[in-house]
């Protein structure tokens, strides 16, 4: 957990950060100049109101920045917070243990689940090991075998999504990244156990969807979900790297927008400023929501829960 560390301010948070610095400076002079107390109070008010207005009027690209915040909780943080005794399961059984895809057995308020999730890595070494959260085909195949395990043993599946997408590399193409994703989509469609997915940071394209075919899909307030990274979208449609903000806006990728489009079921509140300000509280909130969803889904029969999932995805689309 990175909660004990001071949150690193994002670019759009600079005005706040500057104000906070000024307040700090003022506070230090307070013992010598008690008359500054009033100024400090005023600044405190300013700070609060600026903060509220800033976070009430976040642009899509600001959400993206929060979703990518380096101190944002990652899959392993959630798993550990929810079940300190969770059992990690490694490997695809065929040659690779992809660190970008974490899997294991968790117990959430007495509900046993098979959980998988993409993992970005915190330190530089971790990041590299996790390939910055971008799984190779073998990562998806690790998830696949865990999905099959869950289905065999009638255990619900929980998927945490935080990835820019599947890794685009030579080996990834050689080992059939497309097939790995497609097979997961098909497998998840067919399992007869409840599947709940939560987008905790970035939900990037097919690489996110590969563990996202769920009965219920949740998004953290500042997480994003999109068919392509905004950078990719900007470079293709605007032929420019400066139009990322426009791409974010155009694609409607924020949790609120995705909810309005009917693709997800619930948006989970984050602490003011984002999940990185309070890992514990966001983990607790997310867990409550997941458990509620699971409890609902566990009322369905195996065939019903599969049909529910297939019906849900059958309905997506807009045409005349």
């Amino acid at each position: 957990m990175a909660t004990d560390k001071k949150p690193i301010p994002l670019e759009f948070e600079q005005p706040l950060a500057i104000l906070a610095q000024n307040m700090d400076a003022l506070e230090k002079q307070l013992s010598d100049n008690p008359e500054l107390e009033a100024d400090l109070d005023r600044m405190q008010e300013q700070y609060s109101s600026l903060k509220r207005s800033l976070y009430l009027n976040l642009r899509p690209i600001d959400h993206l920045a929060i979703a990518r915040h380096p101190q944002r909780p990652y899959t392993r943080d959630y798993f550990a917070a929810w079940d300190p005794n969770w059992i990690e399961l490694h490997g695809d059984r065929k040659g690779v243990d992809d660190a970008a895809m974490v899997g294991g057995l968790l117990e959430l308020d007495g509900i046993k689940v098979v959980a998988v999730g993409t993992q970005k890595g915190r330190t530089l070494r971790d990041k590299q090991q996790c390939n910055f959260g971008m799984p190779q085909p073998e990562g998806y195949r690790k998830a696949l075998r865990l999905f099959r395990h869950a289905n065999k043993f009638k255990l619900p599946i929980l998927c945490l999504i935080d990835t820019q997408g599947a890794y685009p590399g030579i080996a990834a193409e050689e080992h059939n990244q497309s097939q790995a994703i497609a097979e997961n989509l098909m497998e998840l469609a067919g399992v007869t156990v409840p599947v709940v997915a939560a987008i905790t940071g970035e939900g990037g394209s097919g690489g996110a969807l590969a563990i996202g075919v769920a009965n219920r899909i949740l998004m953290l307030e500042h997480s994003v979900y999109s068919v392509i990274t905004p950078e990719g979208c900007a470079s293709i449609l605007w032929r420019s790297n400066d139009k990322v903000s426009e791409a974010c806006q155009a694609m409607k990728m924020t949790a609120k927008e995705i909810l309005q489009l009917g693709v997800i079921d619930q948006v989970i509140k984050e602490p003011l400023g984002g999940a990185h300000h309070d890992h514990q509280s966001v983990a607790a909130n997310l867990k409550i929501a997941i458990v509620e969803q699971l409890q609902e889904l566990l009322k369905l029969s195996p065939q019903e829960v599969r049909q529910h999932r297939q019906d849900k995805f059958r309905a997506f689309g807009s045409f005349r």
Partner: protein
Amino acid sequence: MDLKDWFASRQKRREIQEVITQPLTTEEYCALWKQCFQCRELLYTRDLRTNLDVCPKCDYHFRIGALDRIEQLADENSFEELDADMRSSDPLNFFDTEAYTKRQDEASRKSGLREAVLTGICKIEGQTTALGCMDFGHFGGSMGSVVGEKVTRLTEAAIERKSPLIVVCSSGGARMQEGILSLMQMAKTSSVLKSFSDAGGLYISILTEPTFGGVTASFAMLGDFIIAEPGARIGFAGRRVIEQTIRQKLPADFQTAEYLLKHGQVDMVVSRNKLKATLARLITFHQSSASELEIEDNSSENSNGQGSSEPKPLGARN
């Protein structure tokens, strides 16, 4: 694909549509020549067409549109289109440098099609088959809601008719202009293919130049058989994206059909002039019993007015 290609493609398309209603006028072709992209040979368009748009000199497979593909694969006049009128809407009210609605109109003007896939029920060497053909010439073959919905309905039609399913893929990927809804089409098509597979259906996916992104990572890679056309480039990520990511040059044959064959990703690479025969053979091979066959034949012959998605004669389209 540049404008010249688009235009040539459109011209060709018109001609084919006329084929259906009136005899071919030879003169229309005479003036047309085409240069092979691979061997640079100048080819007489009629010869090229007779050869299924494959260069007779170097076997280069030219991109062909959905209508040409249907003509090549379906028995004559057997293709009855499904969902011919389905069109994209604009769920995101999307605008980049131009409005999505305008881009749609432009795409249709260039391709002569309403969307990037044509779907329908046809016969292939007498065997009732659900056939979908994508068209890279329309909006880069990108998959939005309509492509997803049409492929899904086609699969449902195949389940209903207990017929095999063939999809000829050609796509640049998901259609960004429909945002997350485009992405969901990957799951939607994969989900209905799961039902089709559980029902014992035979699905053959054909990968043609080019097939990338969300289409490859969903229905294109889920065939019981996966066939690629010679030279077709097929992959998840585009060559440029990979080169930028890994900061090195890629081998020349990277992501070609032959590369995929070598890497175990496709069952076979089949030349266009053998494609129909191969498909017919695979379908025959997987017909489990005579009785099932009869059911199929009956349903396809009599069901034009039944079911949720009604087939429509191709001539009635547009």
